[in-house]
């Protein structure tokens, strides 16, 4: 038998410990993506042409280039400008900014889906622009985006192993180190895969529930 249960049980605690790091990176990265994405989406609608255009280009550029090289970029370039951050922080920033390009599109679609009548009614009531955005448009725009954002949360979770490339001790990096020390890659890598699969399946089930709750009716 190639597979050793004994060894698998042996390495399980280390991998579960690293799972906590993976989840931290996912949650923190998602927070960055959720906030920054809204920023890009709003910037794209600013009536100042060059600014809107720049936001559009940035989003397009970030979306069509690999996350890995963006991670390296921040990892190697920030120190050149005297910004010394821990690899984990850089990883969270990189993954968060990468996905902010996707969430920006989600928010934009959400904002555009708010009926024009809502704007007209708010203006007719003489509400200030800030109140129209904060009290009328955004609350309606964000609601249908919740399940879509959930899907990006899962995608981010599955992209956290890229942080292994800059020495963050998340699950894959831990599995790799165990493999290098013991010359047994099969068990740690398989367990890592299974943990990813189980969490993704549970999370997808959760997102489907969100779809039912948020998408139909208001």
């Amino acid at each position, binding site marked *: 038998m190639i597979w050793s249960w004994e060894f698998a049980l042996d390495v399980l605690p280390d991998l579960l410990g690293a799972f906590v790091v993976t989840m931290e990176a996912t949650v923190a990265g998602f927070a960055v993506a959720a906030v920054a994405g809204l920023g890009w989406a709003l910037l794209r609608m600013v009536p100042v042409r060059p600014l809107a255009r720049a936001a559009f280009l940035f989003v397009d550029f970030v979306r069509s280039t690999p996350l890995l090289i963006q991670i390296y970029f921040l990892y190697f370039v920030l120190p050149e400008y005297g910004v010394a951050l821990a690899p984990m922080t850089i990883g969270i920033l990189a993954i968060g900014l990468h996905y902010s390009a996707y969430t920006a599109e989600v928010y934009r679609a959400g904002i555009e889906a708010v009926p024009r009548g809502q704007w007209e009614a708010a203006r007719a009531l003489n509400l200030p622009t800030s109140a129209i955005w904060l009290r009328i448009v955004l609350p309606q725009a964000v609601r249908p985006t919740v399940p879509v954002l959930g899907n990006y949360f899962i995608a981010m979770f599955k992209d956290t*192993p890229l942080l292994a490339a800059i020495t963050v001790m998340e699950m894959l990096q831990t599995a790799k180190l165990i493999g290098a020390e013991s010359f047994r890659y099969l068990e740690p890598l398989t367990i890592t895969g299974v943990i990813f699969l189980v969490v993704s399946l549970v999370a997808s089930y959760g997102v489907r529930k969100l779809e039912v709750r948020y998408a139909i009716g208001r």
Partner: protein
Amino acid sequence: MTDLLAFLRTHLPALVEGLRVTLQLTLGGAVVAALLGVAAGLGRRSRSRWISWPAHLYVEIFRGTSAMVQLFWFYFALPFFGLGLPALVTGVLVLGLNSGAYFAEVVRSAIAHVDRGQWEAGRALGLDDRTILSRVVMPQALAMMLPPAGNLLVELMKNTALVSLITLSELTFATQVQRAATLQTVPLFALALLVYFAVAQVLLTGVRRLERRVTAYRGLRA
């Protein structure tokens, strides 16, 4: 200006060599993904459990685990079963398996969205299911598949960067090697990012053109 020329003369050959491997991975992965995606997408609709179950399992496993974990598993764990593959083959295979699982869902949902009346009309004309699928349903589904397929293609191209981590000298790897040699970090990474961006634009333009041809062929657009 002369600085830029000198910079390009020093680094461009290595990056172009890396780009060649990146394109090989993208193309190879796309072919594997297209075949697997169509097979699994159709397989999931099969009435026989012996076909629909493995197709479903494949889709769930390769969508549910991370592409990078899959890559490492195939490169480091598969040799324990006596199956050690070269890095390029592993890269093409894993990229194809991963994208194929996403593409299978695209194929499945596109077929499901073709009007049921098309099947009924086909049967009323005495066509067998296989002919209806290949001559009536698939051509219509194809038009729906193309836009998401274009996005998947760009995602696949982006994922080729991961293969640098199993020692294959594609664009990201070549950039890293050049950086280690000359420490020209910012311009090198900026150049690599621009090359990736350009490749993505070319791929998207290609798919959009194909889309226009398919819709024109079907007479959907005047």
